[in-house]
């Protein structure tokens, strides 16, 4: 088969997108996360409404559900890579696309295409809900701060998803990958809160946290959003590279 190289990439990307879009659990995860996000936003808003009026920012409350929301995106990333290994789909995939490096990197790219709009919609819907409920009581913020924060959130969630996909490709089984990632993001990371921020700011989730931290926050910001994005992307790229190298070496 002789295709020009650019056409080859397009066809592989199309195939990978097709596989992701037709995976029912992807849609279940996305819908579930969306509904959960709205419920959590409602809970946080009602907690915020009980507090002192006029002191909280809409962004802080609207994005408070982000800690939970990332779980949905972790699942999304793991599903995308691990679904190949349940039932031996990976062998058909590699028969049709015998370039392993290209295949896995295209898969991550296709995943990013799905994740970016989904992450943006979810982050925006959370903030929007808080905005409509708390218009009278909370501090009003400028529109460009809001857009910047939303973009940071989208970037953070996309990085998390791609990182999870790489980890999923490393483990090739859903359960260990899920346990390791959830254990890191929800148990280990909060436990290391006492570590000096000098070290902690380089962790993948804390670095990503600075991407959407509102600039007006009273806490000390150790990294600018750009630096946070850089470190977080670096982690993602490292893991994707390791996954690709191992994928090329290992027996499928």
């Amino acid at each position, binding site marked *: 088969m002789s295709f020009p190289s650019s056409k080859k990439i397009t066809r592989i990307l199309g195939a990978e997108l097709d596989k992701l879009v037709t995976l029912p659990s992807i849609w279940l995860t996305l819908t*579930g996360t969306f509904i959960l996000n709205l419920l*959590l936003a409602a*809970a*946080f808003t*009602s*907690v915020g409404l009980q507090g002192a009026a006029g002191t909280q920012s809409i962004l802080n409350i609207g994005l408070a559900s982000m*800690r*939970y929301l990332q*779980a949905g995106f*972790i*699942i999304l990333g793991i*599903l995308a890579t691990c679904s190949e290994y*349940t*039932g*031996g789909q990976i062998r058909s995939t590699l028969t049709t696309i015998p370039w392993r490096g290209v295949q896995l990197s295209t898969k991550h790219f296709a995943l990013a295409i799905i994740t970016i709009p989904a992450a943006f919609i979810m982050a925006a819907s959370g903030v929007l809900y808080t905005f409509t409920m708390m218009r009278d009581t909370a501090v009003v913020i400028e529109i460009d701060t809001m857009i910047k924060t939303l973009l940071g959130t989208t970037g953070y969630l996309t990085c998390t998803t791609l990182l999870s996909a790489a980890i999923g490709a490393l483990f090739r*089984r*859903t*359960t*260990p990958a*899920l*346990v390791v990632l*959830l*254990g890191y993001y*929800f*148990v280990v990371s*909060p*436990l*290391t809160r*006492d570590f000096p921020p000098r070290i902690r700011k380089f962790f993948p989730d804390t670095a990503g946290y600075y991407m959407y931290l509102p600039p007006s926050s009273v806490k000390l910001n150790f990294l600018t959003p750009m630096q946070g994005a850089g470190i977080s992307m670096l982690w993602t790229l490292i893991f994707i590279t390791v996954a690709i190298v191992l994928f090329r070496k290992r027996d499928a």
Partner: protein
Amino acid sequence: MRAFNAELSKLFSLPGIWLAFLIGAFAPAVIAALDSMAQKEEIIAGVSTRLSEVGYIGLALGVQGVIILGVLAVSSEYLTESSESGGGQQITTSLTVVSSRLHFLLAKAGAVTVISILLSVVAIMTTVSATHLVLGEYTPAFEWPKLLGAVCFWAFTALLAFGITVLTKHGMIPLAVLIINTSFVSFSFLLSKVTKLALYLPDRAGFEMFMFLSNRFLTPFTGGLVMFAWVVVLFIAAAIVFHRRDVAS
């Protein structure tokens, strides 16, 4: 009894179970050690407000091991084999051998309970020694009733994970929800700020068995009773659903 032995053997031969044992035995010790290190100075100075929680916090937040155990026990039965080896599910074989569905469920729940109790005993030993290692002579005494409460908490958590997974048939959602709920950003903690009723949720009620929370709500015994009621209700629901459901679907 033979069904129970079979379930034990199936559980021990699962690859993921070793992960559960590893996490279950060491995660509480690590959490307790980190927490003790963080407040060592306060304890030595005698100003710590959380003296009664030392060590127990590891047992409260380190239950991921038994959650994995409970979830895996069921989700492994429903895992579809690859098409190359027939595309079957273990559950069809299991139900061919043990044809009474209630017996099957009871045997499985029994195996999960026994293993989680053993695991909690191991976890208590590692946690207590880790706390002693960090705090030395300042370690508060561990009392038997509270340790018993911790064992109950672990067994009930495993059974909750078990029951939820029977309902969902898929391991991912219960695993994600339950692990997040054991963390510092738990759903029940958030809900308890919204409504007082959330204090009756299984994990909050279960904490009362062995942790002195700052705002105490239930006595240790009622806390355990509330959590046990959750387990029973969930188990009955799981048994009814499991009894009526077509295995192939």
